[in-house]
């Protein structure tokens, strides 16, 4: 039993030692490297999928060791949890010692002051021990008089700052955990207009994540409609500003109102923030089928370059009275500013200065009834390869307002475009905790790096004949303090020079 206890105690001492902290810090730094080199699911899940496709043998093995989820992996967590345990184990006893030091008085002067790093003898002072103590107190030294000697200490803020810094680190960890448990986030693409409006429920999001202690009913109740979006660009195509206007309703908002927000100034509601991420164009296509029925669809296209050349699909699965193999879809390339000459491949400017839409028509079975999820931005390639979905005619270039009559007499019309934005809606209750903790951390850091712990003792020998008393002083700096010699000199001069 005694041996187990000794083993535990020694292991604990090892864990809380500085050397272990150094090794763990080094490991933490090294462990974070794969999180920056390899794509991470939390940053960009699409790139992770791409990596897995590109590396069919290595990819799954990396996935097994959480190489694509480094920062939520067990091994990374183990490192920082061990580090924080080591921190707590070191800092709590130090806090105890520091409180004890704050409550006790500076120690008595050593017998031989001449053995201290700083020493001054043979000075005189006009006064007694109490006046020396007063001078020291005026310079904010913590002073105590014992008989004919004065003990003074200064620089407790260094350790206070040090402890504040390390406890603030713990508070940061707590704040992060709080946000992760009780926070949530969601993304979606919103097309401008009343038919693109959505409400803050998990079903209406393209992607969402709820914290461990959050369930779907906890989301703040509000509804959002994108009323306008404006972007301005330079002639070179470089963006200058993006801003969006939205109409908000719901209990979380109070009175229905219109709000504007942009990159760098998000929409802040109670219990949710709305951030503007990206934007693009959604062409509106109107298809008239063989039976004269018209359907209009607004299809968001995804941009592929800085000129907002966009690709997407406009699908019409319910036309032609839902006859089998009579569904229609149009694979499109939209150029906000099509080049005047040459092939129509890339848009030369992100603004709609010369919009053009290149369409390729497909007829057949879109594969939507198979029950397998598929992207709304690309055609189901399996259906195309299987011959279930075939191209109809050649590609056709349409300008806004233009229309195209297909081989079976049906027409498709390019009505115009609408803007869309991608939004990130988030709630993080730990943010404020982290912010306050970081501020305290910085304060603690500055105090601990600038504070200097030092002690001074002064022994006063009163003159036998009632003249000036003899002073002997010694000083000790407890940490690297290059200016202490000068400070000591100035102080002793002040003590002896004061009349």
């Amino acid at each position, binding site marked *: 039993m005694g041996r187990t206890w000794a083993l535990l105690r020694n292991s604990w001492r090892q864990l809380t030692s500085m050397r272990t902290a150094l090794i763990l810090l080094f490991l*933490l730094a090294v462990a974070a490297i794969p999180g*920056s080199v390899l794509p991470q699911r939390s*940053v960009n899940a699409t790139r992770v999928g791409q990596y897995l496709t590109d590396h069919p043998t290595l990819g799954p093995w990396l996935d097994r060791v959480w190489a694509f989820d480094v920062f939520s992996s067990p091994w990374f967590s183990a490192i920082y949890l061990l580090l924080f345990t080591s921190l707590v184990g070191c800092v709590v006893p130090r806090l105890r010692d520091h409180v004890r030091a704050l409550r006790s008085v500076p120690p008595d002067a050593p017998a031989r002051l001449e053995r201290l790093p700083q020493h001054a003898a043979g000075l005189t002072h006009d006064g007694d021990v109490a006046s020396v103590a007063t001078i020291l107190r005026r310079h904010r030294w913590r002073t105590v008089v014992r008989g004919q000697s004065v003990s003074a200490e200064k620089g407790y803020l260094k350790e206070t700052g040090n402890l504040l810094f390390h406890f603030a680190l713990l508070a940061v960890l707590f704040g992060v955990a709080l946000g992760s448990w009780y926070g949530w986030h969601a993304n979606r693409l919103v097309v401008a207009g009343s038919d693109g409006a959505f409400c803050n429920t998990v079903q209406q999001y393209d992607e969402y994540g709820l914290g461990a202690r959050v369930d779907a009913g906890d989301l703040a109740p509000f509804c959002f409609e994108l009323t306008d979006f404006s972007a301005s660009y330079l002639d070179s195509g*470089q963006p200058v500003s993006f801003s969006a206007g939205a109409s908000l309703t719901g209990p979380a908002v109070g009175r229905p109102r219109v709000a504007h927000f942009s990159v760098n100034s998000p929409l802040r509601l109670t219990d949710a923030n709305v951030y503007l991420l990206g934007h693009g164009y959604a062409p509106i296509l109107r298809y008239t089928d063989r039976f004269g029925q018209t359907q209009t669809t607004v299809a968001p296209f995804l941009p592929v370059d800085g000129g907002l050349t966009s690709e997407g699909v406009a699908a019409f699965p319910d036309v032609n009275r839902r006859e089998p193999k009579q569904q229609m879809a149009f694979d499109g390339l939209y150029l906000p500013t099509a080049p005047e000459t040459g092939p129509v491949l890339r848009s030369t400017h992100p603004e709609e200065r010369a919009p053009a839409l290149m369409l390729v028509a497909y007829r057949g079975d879109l594969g939507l009834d198979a029950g397998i999820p598929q992207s709304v931005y690309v055609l189901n390639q399996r259906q195309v390869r299987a011959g279930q979905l075939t191209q109809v005619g050649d590609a056709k270039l349409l300008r806004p307002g233009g229309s195209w009559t297909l081989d079976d007499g049906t027409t498709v019309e390019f009505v115009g475009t609408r803007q869309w934005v991608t939004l990130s809606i988030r709630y993080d209750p730990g943010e404020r905790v982290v912010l306050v903790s970081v501020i305290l951390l910085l304060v603690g850091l500055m105090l601990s790096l600038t504070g200097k712990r030092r002690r001074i003792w002064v022994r006063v020998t009163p003159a036998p004949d009632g003249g000036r008393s003899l002073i002997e002083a010694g000083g000790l700096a407890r940490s*690297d303090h290059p200016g202490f010699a000068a400070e000591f000199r100035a102080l002793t001069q002040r003590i002896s020079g004061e009349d």
Partner: protein
Amino acid sequence: MSAVSDQLLVVAVLSYLAAMLCAAAEFAFGQRGVVARAATRELVSVGAGSSASPVPASPADPSAAAPDRAWRASWAGRAALAAFVVGVVAHAGCAAARGLAADRMPWGNMYEFVISVTLVGAFVWLGLVWRRPALRHLTLYVALALVFLLGLAGMVLYTAVNPLVPALNSYWFVVHVTAVTLASGIFLVGFVVATMYLIRNGYEKGKRSFPYTLGRRLPAASTLEPLAFRLHAFAFPIWTFGVAAGAIWAEAAWGRYWGWDPKETWAFISWVVYTGYLHARATPSVRRPVATWIAVAGWVTMMMNLFGVNIFFVGFHSYAGV
């Protein structure tokens, strides 16, 4: 105005090069003269980081330099410092002109960022040399680092002036980028001094292979090491603040205060490595050279953050403009 900025960059690089050449000449002429005596002075004045108090050269020094060699050496040294000052002025002008041309602070892309960081480093160096004139003999190495980085900026990273992309258009731009620029510049000087310490320490231990031969003309290791520590200790809170300001800005711009974006991750790695350096220095069982190597590793992570992340990794921070 942008053309003025480009021309001033050339002037700055050439001036730093001239400073290097003059400093090298000082070493050459001052064979056993000025520099060695300055180094010996440093050895004599032990401890508390004193500046070069005028301790006379020992009269028993048999290989004291001939008077005219010493004169040439001291003039070369002064010319080196003068050329460095001219370089700093041109460098500052280059940054200011670039800022005026772009109508904003000159930190919008990698080219401008490197110009600003090196400018901070140059100013810090001038400040140090002003307070402790004996350090001016290290100007050769500081100028070398500046020439290398500025040359890289001008030849590889150069991009024409353009306004900020909307995501950067925020007052946090000034706060966050000022802080990381300042901290990086001071870390740059700290890295140079730390490297000089390691070279000099190896020389004092008896190593005589290159690069330890450079240590012959360096100030004593016992003065270089505290200086390196103080530079790093000064820059570290500024770096912490810069990263925190970046997180606050990221919350407003991207929706979350920390997302393990590659640049955020490498800023974290640099922070952890410099934390390791500060801890190592406070641990008695860790020898100073070992701790200083950690500081050098910290600078390597900073370079990875500046060049590697911007060029090789895709993330929100891709404003390299390269």
